[in-house]
């Protein structure tokens, strides 16, 4: 009896073990790289870029960087603007020290920098140095002999009482200098080749919405004065791509303003007359993170501190809020995002600048005083190749690379759509529709569907015609028969007509 009871108890225990809900690991694992799908859900992704090495000032034997503010790459050389030490450190692609720029020569006389915050090197090797606290931009040749200085324009209507505080600068192929100056909200200051100020460019347009305009009308003068001023926002950084288009980022916007994308575009591409021509065809415009959450002391939208246009017209934005890097293609689709806050390799504390050397990405961390190098993985290169072939119109080759990317990441929307596009071009509409539907690309689906419908109708035109004829004639015949065989009113009707 006792044994039986024991057996039952053991059986029950075993059953309870089987029936107990198995503990599942959290589905929301934070992977290093991720992408977003149609509904804005975050999906894990293989790494497109991996951090490979880290550069500290002490590695070069020149002491730690102090408050480094900017990076610049020309050919094989990386320029690190070491603002706190008033110098610019040049290293090569292997992170070997090439030289330290801490002074320029003006007719043999040495001039030093004070808190320089940016440098631009043109193709001839000429340097443009934003000597911020000296309120000037220095233009030197590659041996650091001063060619000219750009200072505050003499015309008092241009800057007024404000000091000229050059923060960032780029130079286009024609030798025009674009300066992002502090406390200036009319856009970038443009200087011509001879160092004269020409105009402001790329100002943020100020638009008040309909309701704001109405509200302003109804307010008293005092209320209006107390309202937040509608001023154009200042830019946070600028970069120039291979075709001389300016890329600009802005971080000063509120969450509400972000909701109405009319007024805020965190990243822009400006043409020569200062118009924003960035293509925004993605699920969402390029604003960085779509899911903000609240973790630690981080909240709110992404704040792009820097942007780097790559040679293949993709661009990477650096978010200082969550220390992440967002890649976008030339159509505005988000490719992937990676990075994060932290102390490990590949994570940052306060990233301020991003640059690219070939396909490598270099990120400057202001607080950690370090430069991190990211190299492209196979997965990332498949995506790049897929985009490149798509851009030149070779859809089939492009689809091959998308298939390779899909092999590594089954959740990658762009790969499905890329394959669908190739199928659409090859005339396999039904197959293409499947790919588009799976990723909810209704525009392309609609195109494929229209073609498929046309094909279907052409194939079945005879059946359709027969069907239409049958639909018309059968009720007629039935009516005739009913009239003939049924008595009552129908018969009289016929008789009337005969008469």
């Amino acid at each position, binding site marked *: 009896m006792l044994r039986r009871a024991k057996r039952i108890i053991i059986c029950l225990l075993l059953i309870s073990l089987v029936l107990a809900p198995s503990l599942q690991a959290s589905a929301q694992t934070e992977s290093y790289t991720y992408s977003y799908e149609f509904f804005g859900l975050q999906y894990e992704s293989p790494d497109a870029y991996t951090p490979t090495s880290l550069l500290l000032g002490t590695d070069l034997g020149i002491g730690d960087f102090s408050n480094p503010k900017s990076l610049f790459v020309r050919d094989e050389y990386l320029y690190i603007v070491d603002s706190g030490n008033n110098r610019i450190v040049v290293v090569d692609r292997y992170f070997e020290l090439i030289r330290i720029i801490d002074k320029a020569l003006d007719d043999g006389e040495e001039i030093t920098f004070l808190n320089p915050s940016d440098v631009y090197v043109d193709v001839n090797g000429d340097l443009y140095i934003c000597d911020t606290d000296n309120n000037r931009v220095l233009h030197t040749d590659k041996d650091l002999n001063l060619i000219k200085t750009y200072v505050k324009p003499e015309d008092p209507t241009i800057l007024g009482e404000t000091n000229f505080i050059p923060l960032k600068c780029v130079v286009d192929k024609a030798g025009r200098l674009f300066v992002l100056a502090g406390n200036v909200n009319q856009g970038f200051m443009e200087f011509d080749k001879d160092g004269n100020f020409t105009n402001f460019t790329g100002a943020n347009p100020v638009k008040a919405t309909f309701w704001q305009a109405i509200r302003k009308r109804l307010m008293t003068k005092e209320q209006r004065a107390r309202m937040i001023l509608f001023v154009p926002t200042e830019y946070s950084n600028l970069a120039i791509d291979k075709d001389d288009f300016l890329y600009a980022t802005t971080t000063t916007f509120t969450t509400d303003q972000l909701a109405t994308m009319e007024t805020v575009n965190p990243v822009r591409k400006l043409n020569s007359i200062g118009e924003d021509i960035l293509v925004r065809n993605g699920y969402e415009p390029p604003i960085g993170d779509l899911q903000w959450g609240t973790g630690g002391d981080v909240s709110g939208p992404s704040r792009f501190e820097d942007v780097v246009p790559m040679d293949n017209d993709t661009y990477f934005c650096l978010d200082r809020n969550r220390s992440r890097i967002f890649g976008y293609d030339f159509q505005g689709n988000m490719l992937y995002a990676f990075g994060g806050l932290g102390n490990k390799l590949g994570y940052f504390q306060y990233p301020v600048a991003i640059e690219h050397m070939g396909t490598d990405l270099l990120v400057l961390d202001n607080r950690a005083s370090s430069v991190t190098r990211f190299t492209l993985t196979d997965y990332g290169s498949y995506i790049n190749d897929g985009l490149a072939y798509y851009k030149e119109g070779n859809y089939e080759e492009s689809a091959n690379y998308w298939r390779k990317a899909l092999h590594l990441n089954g959740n990658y929307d762009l790969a499905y759509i890329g394959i669908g596009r190739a199928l659409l071009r090859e005339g396999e509409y039904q197959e293409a529709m499947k790919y588009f*539907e799976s990723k909810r690309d*209704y525009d392309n689906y*609609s195109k494929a569907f229209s073609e498929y419908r046309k094909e279907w109708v052409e194939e079945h035109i005879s059946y359709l015609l027969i069907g239409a004829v049958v639909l018309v004639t059968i009720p007629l015949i039935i009516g005739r028969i009913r009239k003939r065989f049924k008595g009552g009113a129908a018969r009289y009707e016929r008789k009337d007509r005969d008469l």
Partner: protein
Amino acid sequence: MNAKTEIYKDKFRHLGKTLRYSLYVIFHPFDGFWDLIHEKRGSLGGATVIFILFILTQIWTWTYSAFPFYFPQWEYFNLFMRILPSAVLFFVWCIANWSLTTLMDGKGKLSHIYMATAYALTPYVLIRIPLIFLTYIFSYDEYTYYSVFANLSTLWCGILILAAMMMIHDYSLGKAVFSSFLTIIAMMIIIFLIVMFFSLITQSFGYFVALYKEATFRLF
């Protein structure tokens, strides 16, 4: 022949007849709604069938529409929560309208309001169900055609409800519009009261739970 089955057959025939009458009502609203109530051409059973079809049409639109016309996040799709608004609004409309029109010299009873409102939803069913099939023929570029028909069905229902209000309560058009407007306000008040009632119940329940917990912590 069994007498019982004969009765059932008769009932069924009556239901079919009253249902068929809805086709007359939607094309002759004034005449139709008057006869619906006063000549007993409609039935509560028919109204219920139309109402159920109305709900089913919505469900079918969600589940069977072709891809680009409706694509929710199925992982988060809750059918019950989706049909709840239209079902609740329908009944709240009936109750709010009845409680208002009794004060405003309306002639209709609650059953009349229910019946007339349900009959007024017929065009929605008649237009939306064929539209589901059309989504398989239309591409997304032709969405305009789809939305024209969809809006037409809603507009038609709205006009029918107004006509129903005029006929069953014996109102003029102005009074029907005014009473419908007031009904919508009354619906808001009712929904507000329901929500408040529930949140108060939850809070008071939570209070007693907290009290019990506190007591057990102190005593043991």
